């Protein structure tokens, strides 16, 4: 009696195991291949959670539209918090690679997270595709499996200098720049092309990120300045805007944003922002192309807000990944083949045509935008960036020969 009961148990267990096996492996013969595992990193908590969320939303929107499937394989995205901290980013990236076995890592946001992720890519050979803008990573410190898909800081600095001199007619400019790697690239890049065109830099006011009060700083603008250029990030953008008008500086100088009034800052500004030159950047939400209009419409429908340039960058990362994996027919075992292929891919992104140079940085349009008020069918009356001048196919080396530029060394103050 006892023995028979035991045997019945054994039969039961075996048949359950068999069933489980059939259900897992047998029932779906079409998807025998393992899913492609993509690690996506963005700051999800703390001060940079908002731009982090923009990145995430842009990336999610892309896969929502494309059904989480590419090259005959399903895509599984594993999220991790980079926390805008190089140590955390490294730990999380290693976790994604060793524990979660991801095929590639996408994301990052803060400039100083870039080198940390590059380091992980160097030690593991897993491709890392990033946002951050620290110039060196696609110039002097190239890692074979590391690719930047957004923009390097000075890449959008250079056209601004040209625009200042040749279009705005500025001759004596004061720059407000932020004192860290990304800020140096932006501001010194613009100062360089501006000086080469023949302009004079009256002064560069370096400020720490998180400058609480711009009132005192603005008093040190030299009085013979004709244009002031604002290159500020995060909460500083709004504070500079308020201080500029509250202290009456708009009656004394003209101001143009090199990196200032992005879409995510606009909803808090009043009408004084209208018609200001907002930014010189790779994306402008008001761009009039079919790709961008479709993207903006879908993004607004999904998230009830205008996409920021971060959101567009993450969406375009999705495009690049899809095109590359399709070109490889879903085979991701050879990591170098992945990098070689992505360097050849050209996409028609919402921000325009994007391809990569051999230094692993995009060649793309750069837009000077101003702020305009428009009526959106979903959001009502909103302010938005609208391009007023396009620099086509801008390289990170601007018009210079890469070898000469590299010989000059990085932008350092």
């Amino acid at each position: 009696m006892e023995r028979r009961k035991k045997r019945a148990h054994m039969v039961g267990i075996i048949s359950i195991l068999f069933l489980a096996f059939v259900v897992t492996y047998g029932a779906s013969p079409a998807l025998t291949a393992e899913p492609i595992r993509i690690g996506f990193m963005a700051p999800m908590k703390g001060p940079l959670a908002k731009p982090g969320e923009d990145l995430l939303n842009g990336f999610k929107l892309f896969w929502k539209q494309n059904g989480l499937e590419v090259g005959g394989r399903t895509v599984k995205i594993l999220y991790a918090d980079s926390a805008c901290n190089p140590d955390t980013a490294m730990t999380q990236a290693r976790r994604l690679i060793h524990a979660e076995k991801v095929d590639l890592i996408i994301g990052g946001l803060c400039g100083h997270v870039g080198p940390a992720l590059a380091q992980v890519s160097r030690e593991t050979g897993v491709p890392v595709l990033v946002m951050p803008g620290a110039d060196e990573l696609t110039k002097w410190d190239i890692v074979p499996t590391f690719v930047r898909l957004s923009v390097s800081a000075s890449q959008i600095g250079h056209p601004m200098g040209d625009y200042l001199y040749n279009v705005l007619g500025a001759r004596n400019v004061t720059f407000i720049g932020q004192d860290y790697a990304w800020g140096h690239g932006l501001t010194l890049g613009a100062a360089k092309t501006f000086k080469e065109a023949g302009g004079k830099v009256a002064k560069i006011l370096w400020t720490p990120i998180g400058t609480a009060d711009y009132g005192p700083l603005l008093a040190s603008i030299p009085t013979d300045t004709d244009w002031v250029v604002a290159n500020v990030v995060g909460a500083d953008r709004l504070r500079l805007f308020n201080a500029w008008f509250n202290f009456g500086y708009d009656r004394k100088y003209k101001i143009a944003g090199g990196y200032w009034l992005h879409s995510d800052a606009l909803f808090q500004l009043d009408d004084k922002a209208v018609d200001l030159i907002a930014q010189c950047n790779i994306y402008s939400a008001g761009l009039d192309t079919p790709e961008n209009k479709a993207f903006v419409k879908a993004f607004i429908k999904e998230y009830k807000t205008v996409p920021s340039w971060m959101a567009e960058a993450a969406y375009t990362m999705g495009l690049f990944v899809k095109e590359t994996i399709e070109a490889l027919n879903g085979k991701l075992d050879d990591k170098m083949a992945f990098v070689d292929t992505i360097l050849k891919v050209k996409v028609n992104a919402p921000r325009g045509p994007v391809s990569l140079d051999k230094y692993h940085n995009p060649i793309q349009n750069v837009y000077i935008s101003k702020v305009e008020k428009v009526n959106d069918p979903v959001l009502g009356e909103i302010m938005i960036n609208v391009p007023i001048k396009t620099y086509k196919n801008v390289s990170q080396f601007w018009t210079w020969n890469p070898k000469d530029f590299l010989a000059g060394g990085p932008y350092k103050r």
Partner: protein
Amino acid sequence: MNWILQALNGFSLGALLFLLASGFTLTFGLLRVVSMAHGMYYLLGGYIGLSVVWFTGNFWLALLAGGSSIAILNYFVNRYLIRRTGENHLAQVLLTVGVVLILADIALTIWGGDSLSLPPPAFARGPIELPGNIFYPKYRFLLIVFGAIIGAVLWIFYRKTQIGAIVRAGVEDREMVNAMGINIDRLFTLVFALAAFLAGMSGVAGGAFLSLYPGAEWEILVLALVVVIVGGLGSLEGAMVGSVIVGLVDAYARWLLPEFSHFAVFAPMAVLLLFRPQGLFGKEA
């Protein structure tokens, strides 16, 4: 002319810091509670004020709401958390930092990560023109006046009323006050509530000036700590003088040495601590 402009800037930041630090210094001095949550009270008060402005459009109501909601919140934090730590300052630091982390993430969920600016009342918008072609934001001008009024009221309360005398006695010798039949617990609750009210209110005032964003809680806490340390723990006069000094140093440093503006606030503090560790108005420990 810029010297005058910068002095005004210094006084306006000083006025804001005074609103925050006056309560802060009393919690240190009288209650001997090391509360790192004060910066978060500032930010949370500001956010609550912002929501009130969004719904009612009334700035004065926002000041009141920001202050009183924080006073209520603080009552619970004090009653159920801080009191359990007794005199253990390290435990208080850790505990209140934990409270900040939790509240900061709650605030992030509710108000998001954008830098939000609290709209000042209509009559305080735009610049006023002062003699000598100086344009100065009206709001900051009024903030200086507001800070001075609050300072005067607090000073009268602290120096000229009986409750003020008891508070001062409490700073000097807590046990003695208790032995004289005064309910020190009730007094503590009152002072703590006042400190929290001022912190919440300063968040509303500061939101229209420095804007509100995640991370602001630490930035402002550090400045308030400098004020308290320079002025001396538990001294109201110290908080007044300290906040004006920190405000002025900050404003002139931002103008003359913008790259060193963070450093400029801390260097004088370090020097002062070398020669007068108890701060300008502090009592020898």
